[in-house]
């Protein structure tokens, strides 16, 4: 069995425990559970990093070249993003949404057929490294570790997705929280979450990270396409869906500066945006024809 899949098995268990701990912290409101949950999500992060590192060693290129690898990158980035948010804003209860999501993402990666998981050498059309980086690394004989526009493109895109995933979790909490605040519901569990106003703000912050990264991802993809195919934009389904997603989040940003669209409506746009991300990521690959292999 290959090492990265061993780490994967560990990580799956870690994310399960992490999600349970955050759930426990939310329900029982015990401080120690919260602290253990944070520690555990850090352990899960380390373990996910090991998946990526060992996979890079096994395949001999940056570990984002198939669906499974990109899932690992996505889960990794979402975990880091969440931990940074928790460190800065100290609202541990919100972890329940993000970590449950992480666990579900791990499960779906687990369920992928083997052909999406195996470590493959790269198709020649995809091998193009930054010359300056190869040249630099060649001084120490490390040129095989150089990356190119394509690696950068995938990485930036997935960091963007991670921001949107966090915002998605928060927007869902927002919708329920607002119902509780306006007296529509009287859930005691909802009362444990911070004010809707704060959740809205945090969700905006997550999108404020996700949106530029998605943009950089789209533009670096365009730079690559321009270089490799001679056109920076060819309206293939993946490109178009990335633009659709981008429009939706642009709408979200403007909803927040428009009176009457703040809050709940904006939260719904953020949820719609994430559905577009999921389609962009999985739907396009499996349903629509196009140039992009998976990511």
């Amino acid at each position, binding site marked *: 069995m290959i090492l990265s899949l061993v780490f994967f098995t560990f990580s799956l268990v870690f994310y399960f425990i992490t999600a349970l701990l955050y759930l426990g912290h939310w329900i029982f409101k015990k401080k120690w559970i919260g602290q253990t949950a944070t520690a555990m999500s850090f352990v899960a992060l380390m373990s996910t990093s090991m998946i990526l590192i060992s996979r890079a060693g096994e395949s001999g290129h940056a570990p984002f070249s198939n669906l499974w690898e990109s899932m690992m990158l996505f889960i990794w980035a979402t975990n880091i993003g969440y931990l940074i948010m928790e460190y800065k804003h100290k609202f541990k209860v919100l972890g329940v949404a993000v970590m449950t999501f992480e666990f579900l993402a791990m499960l779906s990666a687990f369920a992928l057929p083997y052909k999406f998981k195996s470590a493959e050498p790269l198709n020649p059309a995809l091998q193009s490294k930054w010359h300056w980086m190869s040249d630099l690394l060649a001084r120490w004989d490390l040129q095989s570790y150089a990356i190119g526009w394509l690696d950068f493109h995938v990485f930036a895109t997935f960091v963007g997705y991670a921001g949107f995933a966090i915002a998605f979790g928060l927007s869902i909490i927002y919708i329920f929280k607002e119902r509780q605040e306006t007296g529509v519901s009287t859930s005691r569990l909802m009362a444990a979450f911070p004010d809707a106003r704060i959740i809205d703000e945090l969700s905006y912050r997550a999108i404020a990270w996700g949106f530029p990264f998605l943009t950089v991802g789209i533009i670096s993809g365009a730079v690559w396409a321009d270089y490799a195919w001679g056109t920076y934009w060819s*309206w293939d*389904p993946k490109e178009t869906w990335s*633009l659709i*997603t981008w*429009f939706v989040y642009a*709408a979200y940003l403007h909803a927040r500066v428009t009176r009457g669209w703040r809050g709940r409506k904006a939260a719904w746009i953020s949820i719609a945006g994430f559905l577009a991300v999921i389609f962009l990521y999985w739907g396009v690959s499996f349903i629509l024809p196009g140039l992009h292999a998976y990511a």
Partner: protein
Amino acid sequence: MSEKGKGASTGGGKERSFLHAAGSNIWYFFNSLKLTLGVLITLALVSIIGTVIEQNQPVEQYLAAYGERWTGIIFKTGLHNMYHSWWFLALLAMLALNIVVCTFERFPPKWKSLLNHIPDKFDPRLIEKLAHNKTVTVNTSASTAVERMSKALKKKGYCISQSGSGSESFIYAWRGRVGRLGSDFVHISLLLILLGAIIGSYSGFKSFDAVYVGDLMKVPTAEFKLRLDKFWIDYYDTGQVRQYNSMITIVEDGKEVLTKQIWVNEPLSYKGIRFYQSSYGMAWNRVEEAQIGVRKKGSEEVTDVFTIKWNEKANVPGTPYDVKLVGYTADYEYDKAKGIVTSKSAEPNNPAVMFEIYEGADMIGGALVFLNHPGLYPSLPESANADLVFGGYKGIMYSGISINKDPGTNVVWAGSLVMGLGFYLAFFVYHRRVWVHVRQTGKSAEVKFGGMINKNTLALERELDDIADSIVSDR
């Protein structure tokens, strides 16, 4: 419009006010963030259609997939080439107009208020009205409290304007004003990117040409030519193709300017025109050289094999005749109606060579010789008492090069850079303003302060807490 209105003396007033009203209505229509939301969401929704209906396919495919009726509708509405249809472009134009009008309306006042932002004096009661405000009492004189406050604010990176003295002082502090320009940079960058796309669609082009090894190729719109020096294929040990390569040279004014090896995804770029390796093959209408044999009449034996190069003359051994190799076709076909020879396919299914026959300097005829059908037609004049046999050939490779030019690309990249800057300013540089009122109350000083931030209120709250701590304990 208004110029014309001024010139007309009679009846112009009415027309002018009408145009004016229409103009201001249009202006008003485009000066709306709700319109922005509408256009963005509409763009997102309609874009989906083009990912479901495959774009730019031949009609037959639509007919097969959607039937006659729907195909008609698809072509009428331009759904088969949706992203270039007039209504999609109109939506983009609306977005652009929306941006232009919003920027005209909002930027100047914003700019002014950012420049003239320092108040001469402010009412301390306003501080309490701010969403984030605090009042702390410090056991020092007012002037020490002011000093501590200034220090704390400066440490956090604020600029400061101070007024008053003695028992009552005012401080106004600010930071991150440029952040407010972020959204404008983003909007302008969008216009730049759209402009780049427009430039590209008007003055760019794409074409394709096959060039033989050793040949010069004309480059559309350019002064220079391109020469293919070599074409070759690299293989993996397993026999799988690794790469297709061409060595090409740019020739300008008869001089070689630049030589570069190109391969798939690794183009050569010269004066804004790029050359991509896109295909290759064996020429179907040309060879490098051919092996020709001579067969005496009535004999089966082929003797005197000689090699003749493309477009060159050679003597046919044992005869007074010279032949010149002037034609080749890989899959011979004679088009009776047009009277021309063509190649049915690029495959060498029925190779044939064509010669001109010379006696001395005079051309006396032509010959067509088949590889698979020797002696099908007589090739040399009777008197030679011999026939030519086409024994073999050395083919010539061509390399298919895609050529393209898009002068808008750099504008798009410039727009992208501006957009990056805009994002950084819009999302990561917050405009914060803090108002402070310090008043002596007996032996201690009362410090009242509050702030505003254009986003990320949580960050401001933390910052004000920090400041309160540091002025109380003078850290």
